[in-house]
């Protein structure tokens, strides 16, 4: 069968799954007075259409910032404006937007799909069969489908732009790649989680080309591209200093505290034992989170700058985003999608660990999905994803040391502990324990009522378990980055 036939089928399957998920309930359905994210998006269309640009980010009688004020960068605002024009054509009555919902989601999500398809086509090192399998699995990743089509958000747009960025930069189209990534940041500021690897990778490339010659030229070109794209997006807001500052205040709400609601990161899990939010003053919290985040991602980034390679770039994206997720300020559980995207990119290289991670990432969002009554779609899409991965990559056969990219690490470890040969076994057992815990917790949360004294017991447990898993992955990915390069260098010496 022709490759494009299969690819079309894969894309159509992805589309069908997304469409059916969007038939379910959405965030805040029928829950006045605040409703949910769906209402937020609708509200943004309302204000961008009716109010002048200068008032979008300001509190006024027409624009009550407490009721879903705009807190994403300008590109989101322009996008909402575009949607508003379409909605007006279909039906100016805002409430009717519910019926056109599937509609708008489709048009804008097509974007992400094209990116994935293109990325898979560009993976030169692997066979065609794997490319299609890869595309299928990435398109079936439950987390993104459930959040974007169920809960209702537009993550696909920013993630799509980021993916274009990764693609461009990996294929040596640096300027296009950085432009795409700037657009991603200007759509959702959370993309800054990915900014450091981009910066280090491009810097590394410049160093490699020699700072005195081509490298310097590249550096200047990149700087110009970035500045130009930012100016273009923020143009209406650069007219007054106060405008820019207000937008920044909305984008980075440092007043909101270390974390909000239940999220599977370190601070939330730690607060089970010690309520740091109440003990430490505000500015200390910011400083601590800053330090931890940067300390955890520094080794990988330095490595990337010194030895830039597309493979290293992808792994560094994972570890950086994960560090940010675990240690950063005001993280929401949906931010795990920023980590899941790069993990999808390395799915073909370490299928077993990637599948495991993607399952945990979907599980970590369970409290949110249950609140939106998305239980059946979650279960079904997770099962479909798992089956697709098992079939496409036969993940359970790829758990040897070499397959897990842990060979060089094990060799180094065996210098001190000669009998340490059972690393794969340990990992397999951990996987089993992790999956059993996730299934059990899901069953418990769905069937039982939490005790009266601890109404959030199950959400906290889910976050805690997910956090432990994520810490494990952080360590794992950092090990791969630090030790794998050594291996690559040794091999070159041998050859």
């Amino acid at each position, binding site marked *: *069968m*022709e*490759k494009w036939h*299969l690819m079309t089928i894969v894309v159509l399957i992805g589309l*069908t*799954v997304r469409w*059916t*998920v969007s*038939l*379910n309930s959405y965030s805040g359905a029928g829950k006045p007075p605040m409703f949910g994210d769906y209402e937020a998006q609708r509200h943004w269309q309302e204000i961008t259409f009716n109010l002048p640009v200068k008032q979008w980010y300001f509190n006024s009688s027409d624009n009550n910032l407490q009721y879903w004020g705009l807190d994403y960068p300008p590109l989101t605002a322009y996008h909402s404006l575009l949607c508003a024009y379409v909605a007006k054509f279909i039906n100016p009555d805002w409430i009717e937007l519910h019926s056109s919902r599937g509609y708008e989601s489709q048009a804008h999500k097509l974007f992400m799909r094209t990116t994935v398809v293109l990325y898979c086509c560009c993976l030169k090192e692997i066979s*065609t*069969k*794997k490319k*299609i*399998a890869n595309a*299928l699995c990435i398109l079936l990743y439950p987390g993104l489908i459930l959040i974007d089509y169920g809960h209702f958000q537009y993550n696909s747009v920013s993630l799509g732009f980021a993916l274009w960025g990764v693609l461009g930069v990996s294929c040596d189209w640096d300027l296009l790649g950085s432009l795409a990534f700037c657009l991603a940041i200007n759509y959702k500021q959370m993309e800054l989680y990915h900014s450091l690897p981009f910066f280090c990778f491009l810097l590394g490339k410049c160093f490699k080309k020699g700072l005195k010659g081509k490298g310097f030229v590249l550096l200047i070109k990149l700087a110009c591209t970035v500045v130009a794209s930012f100016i273009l997006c923020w143009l209406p807001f650069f007219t007054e200093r106060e405008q820019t500052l207000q937008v920044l205040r909305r984008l980075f709400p440092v007043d909101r505290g270390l974390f909000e609601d239940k999220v599977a990161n370190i601070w939330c899990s730690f607060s089970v034992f010690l309520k740091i939010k109440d003990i430490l003053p505000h500015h200390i919290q910011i400083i601590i989170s800053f330090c931890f985040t940067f300390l955890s991602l520094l080794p990988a980034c330095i490595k990337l700058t010194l030895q830039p390679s597309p493979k290293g770039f992808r792994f560094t994206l994972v570890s950086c985003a994960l560090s940010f997720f675990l240690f950063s300020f005001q993280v929401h559980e949906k931010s795990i999608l920023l980590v899941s995207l790069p993990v999808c990119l390395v799915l073909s290289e370490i299928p077993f660990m990637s599948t495991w991670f993607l399952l945990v990432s979907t599980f970590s969002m369970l409290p949110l999905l249950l609140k939106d009554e998305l239980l*059946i*779609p979650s279960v*079904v*899409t997770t*099962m*479909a994803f798992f*089956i697709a991965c098992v*079939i*496409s*990559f*036969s993940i359970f056969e790829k758990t040897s040391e070499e397959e897990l990219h842990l060979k060089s690490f094990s060799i180094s470890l065996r210098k001190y502990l000669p009998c340490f040969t059972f690393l794969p076994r340990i990992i397999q057992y951990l996987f089993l324990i992790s999956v059993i815990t996730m299934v059990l917790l899901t069953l418990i949360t769905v069937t039982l009522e939490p005790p009266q004294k601890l109404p959030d017991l199950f959400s906290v447990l889910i976050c805690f378990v997910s956090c432990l898993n994520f810490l494990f992955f952080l360590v794992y990915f950092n090990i791969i980055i630090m030790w794998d390069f050594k291996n690559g260098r040794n091999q070159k010496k041998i050859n």
Partner: protein
Amino acid sequence: MAAPGVAACGGNWFSALALGVTLLKCLLIPTYHSTDFEVHRNWLAITHSLPISQWYYEATSEWTLDYPPFFAWFEYALSHVAKYFDQEMLNIHNLNYSSSRTLLFQRFSVIFTDALFVYAVHECCKCIDGKKAGKELTEKPKFILSVLLLWNFGLLIVDHIHFQYNGFLFGLMLLSIARLFQKRHMEGALLFAVLLHFKHIYLYVAPAYGIYLLRSYCFTANKPDGSIRWNSFSFIRLISLGLIVFLVSALSLGPFLALNQLPQVLSRLFPFKRGLCHAYWAPNFWALYNALDKVLSVIGLELKLLDPNKIPKASMTSGLVQQFQHTVLPSVTPLATLICTLMAILPSVCGKSRRCFNFSDSDHNRTLFPLPSALHCTRKEKTLFNWMETFYLLGLAPLEIFCEFVFPFTSWKLKYPFIPLLLTSVYCAVGITYAWFRLYVSVLTDPPVSKTKKQ
């Protein structure tokens, strides 16, 4: 270019296909459901709460029981599971009751009973000889047939969105056909007899079954060139077949015969008062006939050949279920449709599966015929569709775009609200009639199927 998963799972592709489509069916749970949902809920209520003597008389709801007794017993069995989901749905006075648990139960019951369909497809695949095909998974006839049947989108839409139990019934039919292919004729006959008493609409294919069984089972031997050897007719076999049909019918209709309710049951099963075309036209020959009649009447009115006072208003197209008269062309009575059907199937007595669908009376457009076309597809070696057929199929897309997106915004929406349905029906009728014609030609001109070697 290999399909993903070939190397990894080898013979497990069937399980993957079955599991994949089941998961898709689960995702379709919250979709729109039609009045058929209420129909089946009502039948659950009737069979659960009332004694047998009332089943075919009960008329609290407009959706009276009009399937044969075995289906009623099936609903009765389901109702015993339903009571654990939501007791309220079994109350016959709870018209249009559709709580979330009811919806969940009904949808899961369809998904669950589709297991029979999956099994039947598996059996059908065993009957296909796949040795001539290439090594690619996607070129194997078994794979193609499985995909065409398991992932049949018409069936998915009707069963899991609109809501019916066709998958389960089709499973029975496919299983009986598979048994016939496997030379287990008695089982095939038994299964088909049971099927008829589940949904009598399968009477359409009964002539084909009858002729086939007569030919292959009752005549025990052939002449060397493959034609009939008349003196090898076995009365015993004929009688045993008759006995099977008789016993099944006795089991099904017996209780109602004892209660003297047979006329009532039959009148429920065969409502000839419903008219030629149901509210939504089935895309068969009569749709074309009606369309032609409508066109001619409009032309006649324009050219002042017809008197507007004599024409009944909004005759066939307002979506109502009733009998009516055609305006220009001769009106069609039930007897006429029966004669047409018989004439249509007469030339094809030697065939394996026939399409009487095209000429039958009061058609329910929900009846589907995946098997003949599916089997036919696996036999062709050249490309599936020629340019004309491809063009026709591609034309479905603009048609749908027009009907769903463009039409609602035009001014014709209020004046001629039936146009999307009419267009869709007529367009599909053209396609189905053409396919029927091609199938006919192919059956009559194909060389006789060679006997399989004795094992």
